[in-house]
């Protein structure tokens, strides 16, 4: 996927005045967060399960190499071929090599965010093969030639009218705006592809070290199609996705589906182990797994290691006031929202995504809802500090922070300056008590007035009321 994270501010300016996006994001609003809240009501020991899930993820990460080797050993024993990709480019190369070795012409794909990292579809097309997205949201976006804007609801930014227009154009059908009818239209378009494809590509929600299995958690059934019908199945997933056992998976699954869509379980959970067995009548003849590093191992042992706990539920973006206002595309890469603000700089380089860790009010909602307790605001703070230390922030910001530090180190000076400042601002607020404009801080006042201070500092008032 083309990286535009360095243009975050420009992206945001465009998104905030995009009337259709704003309308669609408002409709999206709190639906996911409400569904999550309701689903969690039946979990009477949520905190205990979150703690256990975080511990399971930490256990996997603390012995990641051993668990990956255990997974590889079992997977190979069941007939799965395991490939290792150091970079995103390696993912594409390995996949195309597998496809060529099996004389593949048509590929059907279920959702894989890792394949978005490497721009797999474009690479496959350049190699002369067709890769068809089959998750409804991803299918819509493939027709629209757009990247996903949410990790579990990729076309969340589109309205039914936009989808209807797109289907009518691309399918050469009459325009219809009935949502069930549009879903049936997509089903009928895609069914023949499932039945005729040579290869199915899926992501992998988890890898199970105990059994060498790939687990896929889906609702539409397309994940089952692409892993059952074509003669070759390739699962592409990050190295951090390994879990020790099926029991551990059962614990984590209870939180994944509730955190994502508010379901106690998704319609389908498939635990796939190897290709079709000797007398099986269906299932792929060849099974491959591509284990992708592409920046993940770099996080191990760093302050950002906790981000690797992520199980990709999307709850952080569903609860993020910034995401809710700008949508996923503004973040400029595969992973939007708070987790994207941490992962994108880590995977593509802080200098290429400098503004993402700043794109947060640090309100903490993401951390509160994270099923595996990733301290996302803290990780964003770590990245902010790092960008300051490396001198990557603009000069005026760095000088402002230095000046602040000097003042904070000199309490008398600080007191004198704040007293002066609040009096000045109070006077500027006039009778209304509102500041229409703040010199140098237009961002605050361009779209709204700021209430003027009362004219007295906290210290003044504290001194008065102290017993």
């Amino acid at each position: 996927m083309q990286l535009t994270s360095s243009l975050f501010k420009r992206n945001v300016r465009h998104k905030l005045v995009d009337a259709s996006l704003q309308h669609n994001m408002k409709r999206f609003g709190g639906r996911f967060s409400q569904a999550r809240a309701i689903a969690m009501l039946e979990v009477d020991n949520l905190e205990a399960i979150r703690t256990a899930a975080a511990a399971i993820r930490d256990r996997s990460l603390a012995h990641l190499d051993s668990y990956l080797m255990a997974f590889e050993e079992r997977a190979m024993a069941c007939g799965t071929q395991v490939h290792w990709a150091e970079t995103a480019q390696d993912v594409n190369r390995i996949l195309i090599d597998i496809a060529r070795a099996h004389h593949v012409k048509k590929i059907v794909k279920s959702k894989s965010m890792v394949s978005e990292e490497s721009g797999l579809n474009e690479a496959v097309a350049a190699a002369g093969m067709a890769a068809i997205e089959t998750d409804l949201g991803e299918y819509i976006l493939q027709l629209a030639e757009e990247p996903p804007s949410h990790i579990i609801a990729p076309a969340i930014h589109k309205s039914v009218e936009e989808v209807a227009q797109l289907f009518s154009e691309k399918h050469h059908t009459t325009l219809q705006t009935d949502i069930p009818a549009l879903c049936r239209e997509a089903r009928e378009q895609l069914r023949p592809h499932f039945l005729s494809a040579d290869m199915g590509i899926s992501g992998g929600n988890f890898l199970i070290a105990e059994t060498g299995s790939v687990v896929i958690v889906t609702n539409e059934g397309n994940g089952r199609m692409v892993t059952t019908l074509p003669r070759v199945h390739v699962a592409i997933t990050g190295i951090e996705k390994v879990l020790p056992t099926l029991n551990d998976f059962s614990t984590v699954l209870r939180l994944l589906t509730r955190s994502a869509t508010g379901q106690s379980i998704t319609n389908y959970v498939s635990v796939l182990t190897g290709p079709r067995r000797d007398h099986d009548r269906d299932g792929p003849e060849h099974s491959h797994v591509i284990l992708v590093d592409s920046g993940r191992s770099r996080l191990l042992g760093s302050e950002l290691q906790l981000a690797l706990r992520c199980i990709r539920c999307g709850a952080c973006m569903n609860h993020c006031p910034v995401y809710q206002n700008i949508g996923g595309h503004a973040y400029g890469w595969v992973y939007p929202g708070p987790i994207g603000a941490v992962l994108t700089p880590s995977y593509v380089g802080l200098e290429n995504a400098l503004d993402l860790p700043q794109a947060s009010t640090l309100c903490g909602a993401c951390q509160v809802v994270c099923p595996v307790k990733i301290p996302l605001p803290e990780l964003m703070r770590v990245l902010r500090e790092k960008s300051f230390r490396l001198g990557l922030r603009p000069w005026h910001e760095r000088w402002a922070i230095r000046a602040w530090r000097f003042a904070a180190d000199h309490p008398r000076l600080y007191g004198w300056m704040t007293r002066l400042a609040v009096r000045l601002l109070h006077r500027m607020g006039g009778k209304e008590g509102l500041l229409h404009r703040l010199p140098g801080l237009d961002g605050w006042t361009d779209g709204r007035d700021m209430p003027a201070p009362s004219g007295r500092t906290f210290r003044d008032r504290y001194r008065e009321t102290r017993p």
Partner: protein
Amino acid sequence: MSARDNILARIRSGLGLPGTAAGAERAQIADYIARNPRGPRPSFDATDLVARFCERSVKLGSTVERVASLAEVPQAVARYLKASALPVTGVVWPALQALSWQEAGLSFQAREANGLDLVGVTGAFCAIAETGTLMLLSAADTPATVSLLPETHIAVLDAARIVAGMEEAWALMTSEREGLPRAVNFVSGPSRTADIEQTIVIGAHGPYRVHVVCHG
């Protein structure tokens, strides 16, 4: 060095571990996997697992009918199909072909499903009361496509094989089977999508209907 070696070496250096995974480390994780501890889970009233399973299945959008014995299943399936104005032809798991489908007026072929089959009848390895979920294991006589390609999926379930949670389902599988099949499919209601305007639509790529006939 291969990509594999490079990745494993980077992981170890990141974690501050020396060299390659030694016997003690591998033994430690093998021990954890062997102990296979169960995690905490939400409590629910487990006195009547069948009732809980039925209630949760309906919540997921499935329909459920209870019959007294396996012998009554074909008649129940025929009644359901006729009442819903659905075809009385379809495909059935070879594992269930011995039931008297024909006597019930049903014409089922015992094989895997193709894109044309409209009704698919499967059994279930077991079911999970906590979520109302069916657990299906793929094998020669229990092909996975039968629960996937047809528009209507009918599952025949033995009430005695409803367990509390997924952990019990794994334990049952381990006690009765040698290793995992190619595919363990947990099915929880008809396929669905909410990808257009978050509006839930039943029947995405998989079945539009899941009907469970629970016997015993």
